[in-house]
Each structure stands twice: as C-alpha cells, then as structure tokens.
C-alpha cells in the first residue's frame, strides 16, 4: 500500500522545490499558496529557529556508519508516521484513538538519541513516535499498538500515546504534560544509586514548561547534580495556542539561567546541530556536571492530533485555522531529511542511489509492519482485569453476581 505514501525524495529547500514537495500536486500546492497569510509571523519564527546556533556543523570525525544510521532512523520515523497516516486516512482499518504526529521533528529526536547509549533512559510525551524509533523502538510493535492489537507494545492497552519499551530504556510516552521531567530526574537518580554512567533525557514540548513538574524536575536535577538532559521541543504551538501566549520568555531555554543550569537553543531542523549540542550535554552529564536544558526550535507539519488538513500523499496539513500555510511551507523548506541527504551525498558518504535504496527499504519495512499489525489478534475483553496489579486480577464489578 505504501505506493499511496508520497513517493520520491523528500522536499528540498528553496523556491524551485515547489513541484518536488513530496507528493504535493501542483494544484494542491497552489491551493495552499492561495491560503497563505501572515508571512511576517513565519519569517520571524524561522529567524528564531536559525538564531538557535543552528549552523550546520559538518560531519567531520563522525563514522560514516553512524551517519547512515542517523539518516535511516529519520527516514524510518518519517515514513512510519506517513504510513500510519495513510492507514488512518484510508479508512479501511477503522482506526480510532489518539494520533500525535512528529513529522517535521525527526532531527530533534534522532540528533539527541545519536548522542545516547542503548542503556540510557528517555522519558517521552504524547508526541513521542519519533523518540521511540530514534531510540531503537520496534515499528512492528508500534504499528500493532496503534491498531490496539495484542501484539502491540502495550498489548492494546495504550495506543499511540502510551507506547513504552522498558527493554530499551524507553520509560514511555505519556498523555499528561510534565511528569517526564520528574521521571527522568528519578531515573538519573537511580543511575547514581547504581553507580552506572547512564543519563536520562526528558522530552517535552514548549507547553511542558508551563507547569510545576518542569521546575521540580530541573530544580532537583540541579540540586543533586543528576545526569539529566531536558529537551524542550519548541514547535511553536500547544494544540492551537501559540507558544508566545503561554510564556513571557522568547527563548524557553533561558529559564535555565534562573537555576544556573547550562542551557542553549539549537536549530531542531538540523540533525547534526542537534547531535553536537546533545553530545555536549551528555558529556557534561556523564562527567558529573549535572543537568542541561536544550531547546530545539522545530515544527510539526501536521495538526496537533489527528489528520485535519492532511491528505493522502501530501506532506503536511494545510488550511488549519491557527496557522498559515506559508508558515508550514517555510518549515517544510527546512526539512531535516533532505538536508542530511544533501550533506551525506556532498561528502560522498552515500550516493543518491544508495539514499533512494535506503528510503525504499524503509518504506517496505513500514508496509510490512502495517500488514503484520492488520493480521494480528485483538485483545480479549477480560484481559483488562490484569496488569492492574502484578499478581492479581481485579473484579469485573460492572456485572452483579
């Protein structure tokens, strides 16, 4: 079915790329243009993103295998979500439940995760598909979980918003905003107790800085010098609230100043830049230097949740009331995947052909994972009475004896 998914390479930055937008027909692109507004807002937003020391830092000293793996992971995250999007839009599978798409933010997850070891911890949020895939998550189990199948990561108990892989240090996605900062600090504290070199990374959106758990997690990480990295993925919106309406800071990472925590922003659309910043933080954490606060300036191409404004084969959601289409296109022009592809090819780490082959391979894996999920069994209804406690079932109190 993946032929439905926008085929061809990722969109390239720059005017000329109009036709090249992944699967964007000339018509829909022009329709988009028609709806475009508030160009200034866009520009300033992109400017902010660039401001976050978002220069491209080159590939020197990084093993080609590692670079290829990072590229492949971005593709995997991108095409898995695009694939699931097609499944939702297709309608044949009667999909239901939450679906928060990370597309556009892959560089933020892959760049950070590239700096981690397999046994490091991450605590994620509702928009965590990309975090999971970047940390080595199994897309077969993810596809099955989105279909609430027994073979899913959470056996159908969780769905998109709660995917967890304890075996990979993935403490889980979470539907509540904020606790990941406490969990990451706790996991880091546990590493200290066990005397390991593990670090713990909390991923949250720009909205996750709004409540007290963010403060508590960072404050205690600073107090106990815990190996914690807080990654605030600032995509400019909280559902449909503009980030600026909810915070008096322009640069969210500046909050670190008040806790004397090292903090910096980075262009979240540049995976190599994110990787460099994350490496600095990881080294500091492992060296006992305590927490770091990183703000990745990024963007979600789709709506907050679900698929309003999304079309099969079209990258991104357009015509949404709270943002302009030209803003969306401006960010798509910054897309991290073609950017890395250009770098890899320019540095002859891969050829265009190899890049296409990798992308095709990834699409096949995604397609296979979806087909397997379709074939899998639904959970038994009374399975729900388990997993409340480790060794006991709860009572089916909906029925009267």
């Amino acid at each position, binding site marked *: 079915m993946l032929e439905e998914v926008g085929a061809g390479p990722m969109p390239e930055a720059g005017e000329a790329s109009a036709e090249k937008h992944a699967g964007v027909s000339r018509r829909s692109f022009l329709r988009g243009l028609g709806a475009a507004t508030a160009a200034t807002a866009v520009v300033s937003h992109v400017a902010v993103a660039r401001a976050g020391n978002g220069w491209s830092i080159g590939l020197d000293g990084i093993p080609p295998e590692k670079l290829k793996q990072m590229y492949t992971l971005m593709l995997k995250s991108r095409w898995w979500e695009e694939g699931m999007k097609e499944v939702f839009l297709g309608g044949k599978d009667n999909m*239901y439940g939450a679906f928060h798409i990370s597309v556009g933010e892959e560089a933020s997850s892959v760049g950070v995760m590239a700096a981690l070891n397999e046994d490091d911890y991450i605590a994620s949020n509702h928009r965590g598909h990309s975090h999971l895939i970047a940390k080595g998550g199994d897309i077969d189990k993810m596809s099955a979980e989105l279909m609430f199948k027994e073979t899913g990561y959470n056996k159908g108990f*969780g*769905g998109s918003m*709660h995917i967890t892989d304890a075996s990979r240090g993935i403490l889980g996605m979470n539907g509540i905003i904020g606790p990941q900062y406490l969990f990451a600090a706790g996991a880091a504290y546990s590493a200290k107790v066990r005397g390991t070199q593990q670090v713990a990374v909390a991923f949250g959106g720009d909205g*996750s800085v709004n*409540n007290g758990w963010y403060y508590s997690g960072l404050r205690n990480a600073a107090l106990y010098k815990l190996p914690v990295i807080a990654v605030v993925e600032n995509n400019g919106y909280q559902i449909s609230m503009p980030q600026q309406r*909810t915070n008096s800071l322009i640069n969210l990472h500046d909050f670190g100043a008040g806790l004397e925590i090292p903090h910096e922003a980075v262009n979240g659309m540049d995976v190599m830049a994110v990787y460099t910043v994350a490496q600095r933080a990881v080294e500091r954490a492992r060296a006992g230097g305590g927490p770091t606060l990183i703000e990745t300036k990024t963007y979600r191409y789709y709506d907050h949740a679900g698929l309003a404004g999304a079309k099969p084969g079209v990258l991104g959601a357009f015509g949404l009331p709270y943002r302009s289409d030209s803003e969306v296109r401006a960010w798509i022009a910054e897309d991290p995947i073609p950017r890395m592809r250009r770098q890899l090819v320019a540095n002859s780490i891969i050829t265009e052909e190899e890049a296409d082959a990798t992308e095709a391979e990834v699409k096949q894996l995604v397609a296979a994972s979806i087909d397997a999920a379709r074939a899998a069994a639904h959970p038994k209804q009374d399975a729900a009475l388990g997993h409340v406690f480790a060794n006991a079932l709860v009572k*089916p109190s909906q029925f009267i004896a």
Partner: protein
Amino acid sequence: MAVKPGGYAVLEAVQNEMRNDPHMTMLYEYQRPIAVSPMGQVIDLYKEFGEPRIPDWGPIDEEWFVGGAAGIAMTGVRAIAHVPSMCSLRCFELVFNQVGKLRHMTGGQVGMPLVIWQDAAGRMPGMAGQHADAGQEALYAAIPGIKVVVPSNPYDAKGLMTAALRDADPVIFFHYSAIDTVQTDVPDESYEVKIGEAAIRQEGSDITIVGFGPAAIEISRAAPMLKDAGISAEIIDPRTLKPLPVDALVASVKKTGRLLVVDHGHETLGTAAEIIASVAIGVPGAKVARSTFPDAPPPGAKEMITWMTPDADKIVQAAKVMMG
C-alpha cells in the same frame, strides 16, 4: 427554547452571569469559550468580554487556573476555572487544603465564590489510561467545604452552572462530554437547577436505579428495555453529589425495597459506595447492589473498555438479577 448542545447551554449560563457581574472572570486553557447553537447563534466570550476577564488562551498549568482563580475569589471577585478532562486532579491538594478549608479555617472571614468547571472524558475507546476517565467527582465529594454537581443533560447543565455561579461556596461542575449530545430543550432565558435537588426521571415500584452523568444516560437508555422486561423501575438522577439528596433516595428505596447504583467511576469508594451506604443506613433491610467500571484504569482497546463500562444491557441484566 430549543434543543441545544451541552457546551452551548453551559456557555449561555456563563455568558448571562458574566453580563450581570462586571468582574466575573474565567481562566481556561486551550478550549476557547466559543460555541454555536443549532440556529447559528454564536457565543464567543473572549470576543464579548476579552482581556483580562477572559484571557487570550491560558498556559498548560491547571494549578494556575485553580490557585489563581482561588486568589481572585478571595478578593471577592467571582471566578471560574475551566480545567481540561485529563488532569482533573492536578489541583486536588489546592482544593482540599485551601479552597475547601479557607472559610472554616478563618472563622468565616474568607469567601470563595469559585466555580471549577471540570471537563470529564468518560469511557472513550482508544483514548486509554489517562484520557478516558470517569468518576473523579467522588474524590472531590470527599472534600469538606465544596459542592459537587454532575449534570447528565444540557438542560441540567445550564441550570446547574447558573446555580453554581450564584452560590456563595465553591462548586465543582463535572462536565462529561457524553451529555453534550443528549437532546433536551434548553430555554434561552436564564434559570437555575437547585443544587442538592434530585430528578426523579421515572416512577416505579420494583427497584430504584440511580446514577450520575454518563451512567444516568445509560440508565435512561435502559428504561424501555426494563419496561419490556416487566420491571417497574424508579429512575433517579441525583444531579448533585454533594450535598447528596439522600432523602429522595431513601424515600424511593423505602417504596421499592431495592437499590441499584450505576457508575462509570470505579467500584471502590466511587459514588455508588456513598449512595449505598446512605441508603443502607436509612432503609434497613433494603437490597442493594452496584454496577461500576472495575477498579482498573481505562484500557485503550475498544474490546476491553466497552466490556468494562456499565451500559443499558448490563443495567437490565443487573436489574433482572436483583428481581429474580
């Protein structure tokens, strides 16, 4: 007078009270206070009242809505805190140790004209552990000093919100999304549904069936099926959980001798526990039972959550068990 969706009906109440009180202020998060009636009338509180009484959005910080609104209320200005469904307990400590206690603790000095408009998700398939909850009204009802109302239809929702906004004490208003589509005529003019007054939806002689909000909706769905089954059910929607209209419940069970409480909340210490305890104390010898969502978080898969949720069929089945 027309059928109106619950969200619109509630905003009619808020709009009317805000028009009558030049200072009344509402803090909210991401759900803009805008609604459209079937006849196309638009209520847009932000447009009508604007900053600061209706801020332009609000941060993801429920403690600010409730703690800040409590601070506003302490100055004598009536405040509304509209809290999203998935974090109905983020402010529990503030409600317990502050909102519910300040009047008493200060010997009556501090008033708390605060309404917490608490959205509630209900047992929605696919939303999983944290976004398909129900029954948290029971947790708030356990707190001294606050009143708790749980409407089951747009008419009651508007009337109870109006009453809450005129009450001298803090009221938490549980707004289950399931009630929004229930068809009731909602008068355009303002009216109150008295806090603490139960609604007897149907008279009967065999068994008293009681439930709030989403459970009340399932009970009304069960009504015709019960009739077909030859069971004469007295159906009561208490509407207010605190103060609980015990007299109406006791009077009914004295007549029927049987009480079935239905709740989409959990079994242990859910609303059914208090209703059964009050009735068991008031009507010795009554036969009592509860049909509730199990003591488990809500799973995502529809196979599981649907099976766990008390619905019309399970209610009829339960009533039969109690009659037989």
